[in-house]
């Protein structure tokens, strides 16, 4: 199945949403987004990691080094209180926009009449 381009500016929101459940590391987040979207969205590391950097700087997510099973450490990201607030705000905004866009798309066009 062909993967789609993400709608501009939604990657941050998706990352926040994936982290809302539990802290994850980079690949975990990418995998989760792919799985939940049933493979529609595939995020490549080139946009994923800069997004982490952005969100971290904004104070919405917090990195944490955790040991992995093979005696190495991995960087896990978790949502901060500020991030949770942001997610709520973005979710609401997204809902409003989605409803609006849907209304526009459903409106009868001349060819449909």
């Amino acid at each position, binding site marked *: 199945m062909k993967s789609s381009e993400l709608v501009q500016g939604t990657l941050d929101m998706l990352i926040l949403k994936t982290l809302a459940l539990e802290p994850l*590391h980079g690949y*975990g987040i990418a995998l989760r987004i792919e799985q939940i979207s049933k493979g529609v969205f595939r995020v490549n590391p080139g946009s994923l990691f800069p997004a982490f950097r952005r969100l971290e*700087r904004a104070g919405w997510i917090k990195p944490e080094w955790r040991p992995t099973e093979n005696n*190495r450490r*991995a960087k896990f990201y978790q949502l901060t209180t500020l991030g949770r607030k942001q997610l709520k705000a973005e979710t609401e905004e997204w809902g409003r926009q989605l409803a609006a866009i849907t209304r526009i798309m459903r409106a009868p066009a001349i060819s449909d009449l």
Partner: protein
Amino acid sequence: MFRIRSVVAGLRALFRKRQVEREMDEELRDYLDAAAKDKMRSGMSREEATRAARVEMGSVDAVKEEIRSAGWESTVETTWQDLRFGLRVLRRNPGFTAVAALTLALGIGGTAVVFSLLDAVLLRPLPYPHSERLFRLFPLEGKRKRGVEQASYADFRDWQRQSRTFESLAAYGGDSLNLTGTAEPERVQASTVTPGFFATLGVSPAMGREFRSDDTESVAILSYAFWKRRFGSDAGIVGKPIHLEGRAYTVVGVLPSQVRFRSHPWATPASDIFVPVVPTPARNWHSVRVLGRLAPGVSKEQALAEMNGIAARLAQAYPDSEQAQGIAFQPLAQYVVSGANQTVWLLLGAVAFVLLIACANVANLLLSQGAAREREMAIRTAVGASRGRILRQLLTESLLLAGSGGAIGVALAYWAIPLVGRIAPPFSSLFSRLEDAQLHLNWTVLGFSALLSVLSSVLFGVLPAWKAARPAQSTLAASRAGGMRGGLMALEVALSLVLLVGAGLMMKSLIRLLEVDVGFRTEHLLTMQVSLSEAKYSTPEKQAAYFDQVLQRLAAMPAVLSAGTVTDLPLTRNETSNGFEIPGPHPGQGTAGYHAVSAGYFRTMGIPLLNGRELEIGDSANSPLVGVINRSMAGKYWPAENPVGKTIVVYRYVAERTSAGTHVQFKPHMLEIVGIVSDIRQLGLDAPPDPELFMPYDQWPAQEMSLVLRVGAEPSWLIPRVEKEIWRVDPDQPVTDIKTMDEWVAREAAGRQFILLLIGAFASIAAVLAAVGIYGVASYGMRQRTHEIGVRMALGARRQQIVWLILRQNLSWLVIGIAAGLAGAIALTRLLASYLYSVRPTDPSTFALIVLVQLAIAALASFVPAHRATKVDPMVALRYE
């Protein structure tokens, strides 16, 4: 909150670079591991999974670059990289860098010099609080309502009493006074001021107080500089007496150091002493300059309306004597720079041309460089540099160039600014302002130069960078670049042509001015001024006796051939003119310059007698009044007759001091014209002869006279002896303005010389830069066509043909440049008109000469590379590339 976190993280990335990079590597490796493990779970072998994960991620370096550029610190990093790389590029091409930086240094440095003038003359405020509310007031007179400098004291008092829109009004005048009593007698520059004058300026004395309305006439206020120089900063000076004009004055105050007041914009030096204005009640006697401070919140228009109402009422109340029909205002800040502001803007315009030429030149150099760096740009683009990234890199290089050019330019300016201050023409408002505001390289000038550097880097850098960031893919683009180069060259030619024409016109004016026949022999003529103290020489007899003795002593000196005296020395911008009447059956009236002279004046000056007789020793106070007129006066008032033997009515100024002030009157006297002398330039070199009337000083005594000595040798060594000889008659009379007549002539030329020197310097720089530009374009063209030249020569083309080939490709742009320059010059030399003397702004011969000069420069600059082209070995040329 976000900001702080971002700054901290950015700084950490910058300064803990290795740790941050390590963490990034670790995170990416972990990601790859996880991805590979995931794929192995779906059945891939370890190798396959690892490879697949890597393929999915793409270039690890590219991902890392993406991550790095997410933070602000990456901008800092790339800028730093760009700077280092730019420096390397500039160092690798020392020739190019040196030429470009020097070119910019000339442009930026020159502009900084002129800007420092602008800063001192126009930008720095007057040293008075709220000086924007200070205005000069001028009475408007006659049917045409001409504004005149001075108002009558009576008018001033009425304006002062009736005005509500002005917080305060004050009046002042200029004078020079003899200071005696201590050390050598000295003539000091003074201002007469009304009570409350300094309060109007917003200045309170540093010591003592200012004048009050209940002061006597014999009080004085000293300037800070004079108090320091003449009285050794005596802290107890207030209350002490000083002797002015033989009378005792009490010092009541000393001004603060920043106040340097001049009774006239070009009065030099600034006033040292201030004494009260002596009231003159006559309404037609214009003796004071009026200054006002607007009340807060009052607009200029409101004040004008009120003052014009007052003037109208006065004109109605005193229909016989009142001359002011209205009142005009000028901000004091504008008044003190009248004349200077035009000069400064003119010079700034001229130097802006130089800067533009410099920028065009460097742009051209960069375009040629860009062609040489095409390979580099192609590689950078191939390895993934974006166009914006390359543009940024190139602009950083431009900024570096402009920065180093600016730094050298500021160093040049630091050296040149005092030089300009030194050649500023004395007795001009420009000179006064520079002296008061102190011309130097200050922070404003430095800031302006920095700004100018950045601005010029954009000006010269954008076009070449834009061009280089898009390497020429087609011959079309290449030819467009050729057009750009040609266009820039034409621009340089045009701008430098305008400057050269300007300099040429000024040069011609100055030559014409110095060629003027002044009507007397200026060489070996020593001049000086003596002003007699009022108290000591109170009667005309005493005054005449003093000058008799002085002249006798001076004439007896062995080195002195002859000696004379005159009230207004020629070529010093001084002239006292007055009306006269011609009685008889056809009465008439006229105006002439009134001069009191000694019998030997004409002989000493070398002014030939045309008709009748000279003034003689026998024309004394007891014999009938006689006078000699000049040819202009004879021609103007007696065109068809011989005026010798005719009688005219002249008016003598008589001042009478009473308790109400000084009453001034003009008393009529009959005078017989006994001779006619030829015309001389009286007022100045550029002032055509006017009617002049000369009378013997025994009959027409004066307090202030100039002495002229015709000497056998170089006059300057005589000065101390002459002074001593004069002091033998009276040691209390200061001798001032001891100068040779040639010095006065030089002073007359100083204003135009100043403009010529600066515009000439700018034009020379412009011409050299334009020549370098033409040379650059021509040699670039030659290099581009080396191959073609080789082929042509191999096929038997002659040298002249090759030279012509190279010359021809520049010719059309050169012609366009010259045409544009001519059009520009015709449009712009009008701005020079007021500085020109007997040369029209569109003087055809100057224009023609300059075009020839410009063509010669262009031909020479393009001939050198063209000639080099013919030296190309055809074999080498064919292997070229």
